[in-house]
């Protein structure tokens, strides 16, 4: 919170007392929280080096990194990574776009709610990864299978959060906007969209998680490229280091997308910081 927001109501206690050392206390805690993961990796390395862990079961983390460096340098990794990212991106766009449209229709219109929501609620009960056999029959084992799986995984979180985000908007704010002379389109733009945005972000984050999960499964079905293919191929040649590397890349992809989204979210939803400050 900025200083000016306190200016008209100076609290004598906080105004004279020195600033609380709240920030400096945080890094120490952060380092402490880092200790156990680092220790675990060190133990893993040590166990692998001393031969306690057989290299074909679990290679040392340093070996995994070395393999990663080798594959990155000869360009193999980039090819597979780009293919995986493309599948995730296209799937998210298709599934997310459809979810956004249907969620908006169901959230805004009573007729849309009656027509769209019941089948979606029923379909939600199906574990979408269990649809793989049926999807293979429908769309084959090519690219469309992977994209369909990602789209299905991304659809539900975005649909439900769009729907809930619109439904949870305070009706009194919509009324106030009406008394200010805002028409339907302007109310959508100034009240409904910004009001539903926090829920939309939550949906997107869940959808990205689901997209990676779907990709892991989808890329193990007859893929010729992609991180999943890299792992399946490595398994056949007992290259455990590549399998572990694939897992690491999936984890990093999930982490990176989540972080990126958090940054966008924080920039877009500045007003909520003010909300928390009081």
């Amino acid at each position, binding site marked *: 919170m900025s200083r000016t927001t306190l200016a*008209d109501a100076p609290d004598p206690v906080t105004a004279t007392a020195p600033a609380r050392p709240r920030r400096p206390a945080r890094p120490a805690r952060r380092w402490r929280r880092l200790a156990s993961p680092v220790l675990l990796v060190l133990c893993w390395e040590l166990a692998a080096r001393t031969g306690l862990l057989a290299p074909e079961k679990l290679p040392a983390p340093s070996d995994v990194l070395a393999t990663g460096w080798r594959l990155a340098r000869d360009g193999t990794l980039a090819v597979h990574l780009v293919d995986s990212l493309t599948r995730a991106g296209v799937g998210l766009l298709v599934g997310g776009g459809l979810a956004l449209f249907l969620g908006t229709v169901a959230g805004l219109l009573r007729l849309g709610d009656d027509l769209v929501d019941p089948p979606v609620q029923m379909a939600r009960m199906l574990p979408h990864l269990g649809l793989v056999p049926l999807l293979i029959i429908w769309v084959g084992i090519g690219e469309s299978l992977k994209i369909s799986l990602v789209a299905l995984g991304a659809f539900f979180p975005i649909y439900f959060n769009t729907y809930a985000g619109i439904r949870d908007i305070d009706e009194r704010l919509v009324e106030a906007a009406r008394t200010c*002379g805002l028409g339907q389109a*302007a109310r959508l733009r100034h*009240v409904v969209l910004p009001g539903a945005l926090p829920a939309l972000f939550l949906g997107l984050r869940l959808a990205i998680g689901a997209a990676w999960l779907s990709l892991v499964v989808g890329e193990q079905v007859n893929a010729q490229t992609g991180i999943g293919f890299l792992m399946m191929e490595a398994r056949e040649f007992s290259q455990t280091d590549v399998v572990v590397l694939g897992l690491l890349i999936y984890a990093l992809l999930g982490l990176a997308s989540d972080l990126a989204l958090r940054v966008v979210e924080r920039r877009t939803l500045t*007003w*909520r910081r003010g909300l928390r400050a009081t």
Partner: protein
Amino acid sequence: MASRTAGDLTGTAPVLTARAVHRAFGPTVVLAGVDLTISPGEVVALLGGSGSGKSTLLRILAGLDGEATGETAVRGPAAVVFQEHRLLPWKRVAENVGLGLSGADTDQRIDRALTEVGLADRRRAWPAELSGGQAQRVAVARALVREPDLLLLDEPFGALDALTRLRMQGLLRRLRAEHGFAALLVTHDVDEALLLADRILLLDAGVIAEELPVDLGNGRTPDDPAFGTLRRHLLDRLGVPTT
């Protein structure tokens, strides 16, 4: 649905006319034929106990209730101030005030309105950073910036603490003297009605049960004996014993 018609534009024609307004929620009749007119510049207080339908009537007059029957007509621009400030949390103070406005002088109008409620320095603040009284003043500025001929106030100070409420009542009196808008003030506070209104209407059993002109002059205070007499009479009608 209550049909809303635009009246003629002569200076003395009422800014608000309502005829035979009727509203029921299921079997419960809340408004059983209310007639009401407000002249330009006149402040009318609508008093009633809780559940008497006074807020329902205001919502109908504001055009927010599609299921009422009867006729209402509002002439000229009207604005509403609710009990809660109802500011959009994702818009800064200035954007909230200027909601729905367009035109080259919008910024100046917003500044003027915020200055009038004493919050010119808070135009960049988020609503969540304001105190209850400040947020309600922004809500008043949002109504004022529309240069209304009629202000509809739904217990506008009901959620504020007693001191802030007194200050807001003073602010409203000052603004009214400057701008000369008419107002319908829905309240359950007898003192507030007596301080601010030219005329008091008592809503009871779904109809206007009593109409009471308030001839206390401009410098009215609760210490005035005439104020006390009216106060006792109104409390008596509202079923509050005063001994």
